[in-house]
């Protein structure tokens, strides 16, 4: 059964320096509060994995937590570029950032392979693009029946996956709905998992479109209301589009960024 923990304890126990860490959530349910806790605890040398590194990874990268990024699309959705991501790639600030780059289909299938206990996944993908030139993690594979050549990608197996969900019960069964992205696969692919939730309830009332992760497949659950802000949690909050737009200016300059992280992350009031 999953343990119920505080966010600080959950991150302290489950996210370690040097780990491969996946924070997932596809626009919806992005675990911002957990990302901030990782910054507060000053984790270093992380390999960050995420299909769509957006503002939360811009923050983690700018705060110097990451050594390497495995991803398929890095931008501020609907706004533009990620300035901290670009500064790290182009100028190694605050530390160099190594990239391993895939397509969404490849990343999604890598999580599927991880969740399935398989060493690799097969897809029709990447063919003819320049992506395979820059990683050894995209390889051809031949169909043993038709002889056709397809593409193989290795399983993703994060040390820890962190996601946000609507709610959990006291046994740590987790329920999410709306756009649930690749979260089930990301959690099942990982060695450990930390799930922040809006609330902990006695009984999980079934909801259309729900994904339920049984408590025995989850390591820890932390109650973090609003834990997806400025992203949103369907049924609980709406997306703070203003923040996404504001991030462009905040993140463009190293000092403004550093100041923002100091005030809004390091010195933030954190409920226990």
């Amino acid at each position, binding site marked *: 059964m999953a343990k119920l923990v505080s966010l600080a304890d959950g991150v302290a126990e489950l996210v370690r320096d040097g780990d491969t860490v996946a924070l997932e959530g596809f*626009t919806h349910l992005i675990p911002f509060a957990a990302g901030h806790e990782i910054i507060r605890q000053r984790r270093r040398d992380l390999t960050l994995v995420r299909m769509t590194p957006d503002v939360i990874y811009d923050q983690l990268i700018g705060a110097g937590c990451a050594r390497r990024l495995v991803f398929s699309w890095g*931008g501020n959705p*609907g706004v533009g570029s*990620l300035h901290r991501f670009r500064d790290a790639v*182009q100028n190694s600030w605050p530390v160099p950032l190594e990239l391993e780059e895939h397509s*969404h289909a490849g990343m*999604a299938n890598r999580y599927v392979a991880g969740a399935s206990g398989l060493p690799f996944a097969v897809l*029709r993908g990447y063919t003819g693009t320049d992506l395979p030139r820059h990683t050894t993690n995209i390889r051809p594979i031949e169909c043993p029946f038709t002889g056709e050549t397809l593409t193989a990608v290795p399983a993703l197996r994060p040390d820890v996956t962190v996601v946000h969900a609507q709610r959990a019960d006291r046994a740590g069964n987790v329920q999410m709905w709306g*756009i649930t992205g690749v979260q089930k696969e990301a959690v099942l692919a990982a060695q450990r998992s930390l799930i922040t939730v809006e609330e902990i309830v006695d009984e999980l009332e079934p909801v259309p479109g729900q994904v339920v992760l049984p408590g025995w497949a989850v390591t820890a659950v932390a109650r973090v209301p609003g834990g997806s802000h400025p992203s*949103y949690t369907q049924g609980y909050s709406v997306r703070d589009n203003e923040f996404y737009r504001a991030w462009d200016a905040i993140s463009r300059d190293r000092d403004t960024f550093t100041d923002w992280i100091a005030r809004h992350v390091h010195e933030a009031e954190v409920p226990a």
Partner: protein
Amino acid sequence: MTEYTADEMMTVAAARQLRDGTACFVGIGLPSTAANLARATHAPGLVLIYESGCLGAKPDRLPLSIGDGVLADTADAVVSVPEVFNYWLQPGRIDVGFLGAAQLDRYGNINTTVVGGDYTDPKVRLPGAGGAPEIAASCGEVVVVVRQSLRTFTERVDFVTSVGYGSGPGDRARLGLRGGGPRTVITDLGVLEADPATCELTLTRLHPGVTVDQARAATGWPLAVADELATGEPPTADELAVLRALEATKRTAR
């Protein structure tokens, strides 16, 4: 006649490209605007598919991201991200894929990864591939929507993120790409179509008031021009009204 911007013309031209009853893989931004414009005008039965897993979304306002809640709320089905790629895109169930580009060459190969320098030390780091490589590979056909300029329409793309016709005829078949490729490119100046024989993007239509010379001047290779170069219809009053009402929903959105 109502005034309109070049971007509005481009969006309307892109929307017109979408036939009613087809399924369209939609990215955020201009493709999403164009697809929703089409659904609100001539193609009420257009099936919008977003990579967040929303199949058949029917938003009543423009979504602000591909994971906007309005997409899940109005979709026929919301599926996981692996499912949207594996069960819906990969087998070729989706008729049209809409893509943007930071760079594009004459064969419709697309770069959205890095510009300048080399891969590990680029001049500009772009967002990367996202769903585009497999959209470009697997959709029945691809429509690229992009503003035409020398910076974008380049002799060679610095990085092939998504394959168009490769280096010309036969390349898609050789690579085993099963979709039809970038048949149409819609720009702020006009419409280019891939020549069936040479696969080269060929200017077939200019938007009203645009000249061939303007198009040539915004293209980084010797632009092929169709013998019968058409001039497109300007946006109708209805198209413009619907488009502007859609755009207004973005400003008032939560």
